[in-house]
């Protein structure tokens, strides 16, 4: 300190240093902490509670200086705290959801005002807790979702809130990401239990207090803190009806596995561990791009990791500018000392593999600091590229052509975001469309606004946050049966669906009617099961109706191969052309309505009238989807900043569908229509009990002009095929109707690699005979098409 103070004007005149910025005293935040005697409780039922004799966690503030440190103490919530919290949240939900939309909106608007009053304390506390967050961003969030709260009943009349929603955000996330989930949840009328990472407990608790001041009924927002076990406890609480997590991939995976079988729908945003491409094309403003990447990659609290991809012809200019711009950059503090060795190992390994370093200064010998470092000339297999350690490291790769640039960007298990730099408009838009990520920033990076949803693809998450699209995770269609709460059954996950099926020669063979042998439908061709095995299709009375193929994992594999080949072409067709194909399919179904009705009747034993009605409904449902093909479009959200943005619904890719037993034809066409209309390819597994209508539908598919491979139908054992679908990484989503065990298995298995899951437990006897399908609620088709797409937001700064 002394040497700094004694610097004379002349010293500085010569060295031209900036000088240390005055450290903030954070008076407001410290005062607030002192009011709570430095010891923060839980926020339950509208107030702070400090149950005694709980384990505590010490959180030290960022200044870390002993003489004025103000460490905070958090409580580890115990079982009884969680159940108290659940009870209060259910009561809160009742009060909150019964308010009018306008009243809820008013609370959120008042919250925006109250937040402005607390903004000083809020941001100081965030800085102390090392999770900086601008309070204006939170205010904007509150304003934005107050609007949706007001309009919920008008614009989303057939949706209801989920109930008590648990929002879990791990410590390595941005503070903002908690509220990007909490505000839409509240706006839609849910009650929320927040489990923040310990580091950001203090500002989260303060914000809970601010919510109460704004007039939120007690119990609607609860904040509980604690260790890892707490999260599972909250999720397993009987009151919780939905859980959404934000954090790293490992934590998300662990959590998903813990929750398998509890019957709590779970969604994960795994942006923390995402690796995002930063692509600089030849036609870019190189200086701006280099400035952009330096800003994005070397800041302390990075949103995600970046990999710099540069077109080869620009390599030297980019490297030259990086070197020049990085000279004199200061070392960046690492999150912990432990990260230091991770970073060093990664750098060492990269150097061993021939990478050269651009460093602003040599790394200090010890301590939690590391200089901004670019690793030039790495090859994609290097672990610094695939799993970069947390820290100011930036791998630099090169590509030859525009096409290769996109391929390089897409060649990753992540799909969070990308930044692309080019002055060529056509190239920018084409690249934005072809990158398989949730957010694309053209000539910019990390721009966020509540109206632009962020949604991860692949391993980066299966949920959409922000925008109108981010509301639907907190809503369910009014008449949809909910997934029943359950307790996990003891299940050998590795053995699930591996039992070989045994073919039994049916008794009572009747030579007068030899049952036909039916093939499955893969890649546009009829074929036998790879194993060569067959199954018996029997009527409700037990008579043998047909023999069908007993498909297995090889058949699924073949279907996926075929689907991957044709799906991009199917997607590239104009939506009008897709509509025509689906209309034609509906037409062919119409022409064969008698056969199909007979097939339904034979299979399910319902009356001919009912069967006819089902066919009629199916034709109409297919036509609905044909009509929707070119009607479900993206939006151009109005933004507070200058710039142009748009939001596009995109196809998921290959969707695996395990069909329900009820209404076999109607379910098939409803789900097929939704997925295919939006440009996906589907692999459908007909009901094990009632496969015949699906098998007969193959003939209709064969004559349609839907390219072979877009729809595959594979018959066989449900569990076997479910297992095969779950274990194929190219399948992006699974829609499942089936057993509790199946749901549990999928929840457990499909978190790595991550899939989008739409799970339905069919175990309860369907009293209404598939009313859900025959008399759908108005939001039925909306829910389906929303399941069939992922959202991509593209942002282009313009005047």
């Amino acid at each position, binding site marked *: 300190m002394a040497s700094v103070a004694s*610097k*004379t*004007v*002349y*010293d*500085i*005149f010569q060295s*031209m*240093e*900036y*000088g*240390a*910025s*005055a450290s903030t005293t954070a008076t407001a935040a410290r005062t607030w902490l002192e009011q709570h005697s430095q010891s923060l409780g839980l926020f339950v039922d509208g107030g702070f509670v400090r149950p005694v004799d709980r384990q505590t966690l010490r959180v030290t503030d960022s200044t870390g200086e002993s003489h004025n440190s103000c460490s905070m103490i958090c409580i580890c919530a115990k079982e009884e705290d969680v159940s108290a919290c659940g009870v209060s949240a259910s009561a809160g939900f009742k009060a909150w959801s019964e308010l009018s939309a306008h009243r809820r909106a008013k609370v959120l608007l008042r919250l925006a005002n109250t937040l402005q009053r607390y903004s000083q304390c809020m941001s100081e506390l965030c800085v102390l807790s090392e999770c900086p967050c601008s309070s204006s961003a939170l205010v904007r969030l509150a304003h934005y979702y107050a609007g949706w709260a007001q309009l919920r009943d008008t614009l989303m009349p057939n949706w209801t809130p989920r109930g008590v929603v648990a929002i879990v955000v791990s410590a390595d996330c941005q503070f903002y990401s908690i509220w990007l989930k909490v505000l839409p949840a509240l706006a839609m009328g849910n009650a929320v239990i927040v489990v923040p990472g310990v580091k950001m407990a203090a500002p989260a608790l303060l914000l809970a207090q601010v919510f109460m001041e704004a007039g939120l009924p007690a119990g609607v927002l609860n904040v509980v803190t604690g260790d890892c076990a707490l999260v599972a406890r909250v999720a397993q609480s009987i009151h919780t009806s939905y859980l959404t997590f934000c954090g790293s991939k490992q934590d998300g995976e662990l959590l998903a596995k813990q929750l398998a079988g509890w019957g709590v729908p779970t969604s994960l945003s795994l942006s923390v561990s995402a690796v995002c491409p930063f692509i600089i094309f030849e*036609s*870019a*403003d*190189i*200086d*701006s*791009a280099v*400035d*952009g990447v330096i*800003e994005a990659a070397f800041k302390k609290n990075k949103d995600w990791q970046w990999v710099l991809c540069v077109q080869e012809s620009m390599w030297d*200019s980019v490297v*030259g*500018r990086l070197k*020049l711009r990085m*000279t*004199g950059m200061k070392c960046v503090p690492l999150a912990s000392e432990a990260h230091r060795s991770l970073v060093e190992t990664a750098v060492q390994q990269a150097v061993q593999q021939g990478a050269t370093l651009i460093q602003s200064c040599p790394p200090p010998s010890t301590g939690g600091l590391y200089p901004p470092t670019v690793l030039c000339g790495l090859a994609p297999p290097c672990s610094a590229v695939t799993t970069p350690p947390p820290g100011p490291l930036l791998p630099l790769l090169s590509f030859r052509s525009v096409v290769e640039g996109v391929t390089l960007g897409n060649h990753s298990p992540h799909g969070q975001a990308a930044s692309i*730099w080019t*002055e060529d408009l056509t190239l920018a838009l084409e690249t934005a469309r072809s990158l398989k990520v949730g957010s694309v920033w053209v*000539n*910019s990076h990390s721009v966020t606004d509540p109206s632009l949803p962020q949604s991860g693809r692949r391993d980066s998450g299966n949920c959409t946050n922000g925008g109108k699209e981010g509301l639907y995770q907190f809503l369910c269609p009014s008449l949809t049966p909910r997934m029943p709460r359950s307790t996990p059954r003891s299940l050998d996950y590795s053995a699930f669906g591996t039992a070989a099926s045994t073919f039994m020669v049916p008794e009572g063979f009747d030579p007068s009617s030899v049952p036909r042998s039916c093939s499955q439908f893969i890649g546009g061709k009829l074929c036998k099961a790879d194993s060569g095995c067959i199954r018996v299709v029997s009527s409700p009375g037990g008579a043998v109706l047909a023999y069908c193929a007993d498909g297995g994992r090889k058949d699924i594999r073949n279907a996926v191969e075929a689907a991957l080949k044709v799906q991009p072409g199917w997607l590239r067709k104009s939506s009008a052309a897709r509509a025509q194909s689906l209309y034609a399919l509906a037409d062919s179904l119409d022409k064969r309505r008698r056969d199909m009705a007979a097939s339904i009747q034979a299979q399910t034993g319902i009356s001919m009238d009912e069967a006819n009605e089902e066919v009629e409904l199916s034709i109409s449902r297919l036509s609905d989807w044909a009509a929707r093909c070119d009607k479900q479009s993206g939006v151009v959200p109005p933004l507070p900043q*200058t*710039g142009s943005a748009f939001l596009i619904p995109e196809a998921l890719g290959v969707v695996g569908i395990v069909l329900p037993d009820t209404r076999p034809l109607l379910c098939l066409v409803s789900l097929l229509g939704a997925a295919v209309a939006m440009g996906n390819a589907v692999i459908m597994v007909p009901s094990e009990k009632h496969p015949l209508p699906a098998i007969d539908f193959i003939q209709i598919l064969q004559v349609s002009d839907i390219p072979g491979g877009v729809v595959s139908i594979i018959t066989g054992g449900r569990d076997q095929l479910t297992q095969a679908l779950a274990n194929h990484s190219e399948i992006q989503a699974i829609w499942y109707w089936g057993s509790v065990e199946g749901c549990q298995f999928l929840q457990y298995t499909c978190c790595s690699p991550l899939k989008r899951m739409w799970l339905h437990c069919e175990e309860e006897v369907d009293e209404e005979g598939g009313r859900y399908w025959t008399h759908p609620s108005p939001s039925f088709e909306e829910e389906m098409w929303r399941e069939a797409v992922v959202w991509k937001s593209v942002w282009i*700064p*313009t*005047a």
Partner: protein
Amino acid sequence: MSARNSTTWNLEWVSKARVNTQAVLKRAQQVQGRKVAKKQWQAAWLLKAVTCIDLTTLSGDDTPSNVHRLCMKASQPVRRDLLKNMDMHDKGITTAAVCVYPSRVADAVKSLKAANSSLPVASVATGFPAGQTPLKTRLDEVRMAVQDGATEIDIVINRTLALTGQWAALYDEVRQFREVCGEAHMKTILAVGELGTFTNVYKASLVSMMAGSDFIKTSTGKESVNATYPVAIVMVRAIRDYYLRTGHKVGFKPAGGIRTAQEALVWLVLMKEELGDDWLTPTLFRLGASSLLADIERQIYHYVTGCYAAYYELPMA
């Protein structure tokens, strides 16, 4: 001065230039957010700004008497007692140069000589500010200013050539100016307010540097838009590009509308951030200004005394 800057004509380089306006605007905001510490840091930085000022008078009513006052202020820009207090009185704090119209060069040279000052005299030339006079008279103007003793010449480029995309012709013109400048330093004014786009500014910067400019300068101070931070970022990036390719360091001079000490600090920050410490000396950075010095002196007065000075307490220019 080591080997002087000049490069052969390279059209490909110029035509490949691309600038993204929005990214530049964002960067400009970031730069403005970078703060210099208070107290002695601010004082030191402000004194540095003083040493980079081209103290300027460019008015129709300039006469020997106000030019004389300007020269005297330029050689003693900050009150001596204030400098003494900071122990800077013997560090040769003067402005970088005085800048006048060609017809006043002789007056300025005479005044400075009388005061035993070696301060360079800069002269605007080539049909300042519009540049819309015949090439011959523009060349003559440079010659005469040099003859009268100007050691720095601020030329203006022909905007007609720039706006119509005749970059090679512009290169030739600037090259000719450079030849008649002889030993005198040449600063090339791009008049950015009249170039339309950032890409044009970037291209004009490159062309001027290739043609041998020692400095590139934003504006004449007579256009409606003068030295703005975004446009400066475009120009200093061109300087960086040029340095990376040729190894020549070309200087930068923002001018027009720079009035407050706060702005002067932002300009220094911008240079430090974009080009590094090398460009924080009068050999590579100048501030074209007239009223700026008064505000800086007041800020220094405040640092030294803790009080705000009235303008009449500080010597006028």
